[in-house]
């Protein structure tokens, strides 16, 4: 049985705890790396990460793009939408097709 985790700054994600997702709010980069590593090694099928934190952990996240679990999904934080999540979708289109034919902007 797999679980779902959310990682990011506290203001953005504390609400997810009420829904029964596991929330982790690391305070600095080192803690974030450690927490992220722990999450990926335990029984989580989906890990949501705020776009801000994803920026910091970009390298680590990239490693999991080829594996079927866990799925690491960027979500906008409380400070607003940076568009990084959408960029990622765009990137996979570019990888598959060679050029961006879905977004066109």
């Amino acid at each position, binding site marked *: 049985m797999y679980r779902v985790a959310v990682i990011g700054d506290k203001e953005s994600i504390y609400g997810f705890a009420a829904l029964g997702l596991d929330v982790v709010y690391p305070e600095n980069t080192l803690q974030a790396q450690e927490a992220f590593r722990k999450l990926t090694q335990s029984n989580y099928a989906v890990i949501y990460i705020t776009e801000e934190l994803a920026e910091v952990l970009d390298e680590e996240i990239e490693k999991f793009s080829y594996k079927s679990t866990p799925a690491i999904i960027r979500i906008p934080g409380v400070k607003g939408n940076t568009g990084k999540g959408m960029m990622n*979708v765009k990137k996979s289109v570019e*990888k598959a097709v060679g050029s961006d034919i*879905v977004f066109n902007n």
Partner: protein
Amino acid sequence: MATKQVNPTRMELTRLKKKLATATKGHKLLKDKRDELMRQFLDMVKLNKQLREKVEKAINEANKNFVLASASMNDEALSLSMLAPKQEVTLEVSSTNIMSVEVPKYKINYRTADTNDMFCYGLAFTSCDLDTAVSSLSDVLPDMLRLAEVEKSCQLMADEIEKTRRRVNALEHVLIPETRANIRYISMKLDENERSTQTRLMKVKDMMLKEAHGY
């Protein structure tokens, strides 16, 4: 032009001919696979885009509510109210096969029977903004999980498409032309050998006739 050294023998020729047949068949199959994957990927990615737009919008809305909630409650009370969640989400992961790509499928299980039963705090000491925030977040959760499924599928498929495309190109532009050139080279060489044997025999025959009858 044969770039590698090949033995101009009949055995090598049959071997190369077999290799060419396999390569051509493989090329055709891989090309079909790539086209089908691409078709499915484009549908999937469009869905991914729609879902993402929807989810991002909903999360932004929920975040606004959470900001309102945290404005009207102090930090300790807020942390306290989230301390003991009633609801728990677990996933059953199965995988479906799309053109040999293993794509995850999630089945959501909630701990409590009613999915709306998620307020894990007393209503007396919390602001009503928190209720709105939590319920708006709970509404978006199924979509978020669907997004995770679709986005992961897209990533995996993009990877597979890239690989398949490389293979198709390698077969089409390297292996098949090279094998063709080698086959051509061997058959030319064999023909040439045959012709030289023929002329040698003719020459020997002439010499022998000359010796026997003095032509």
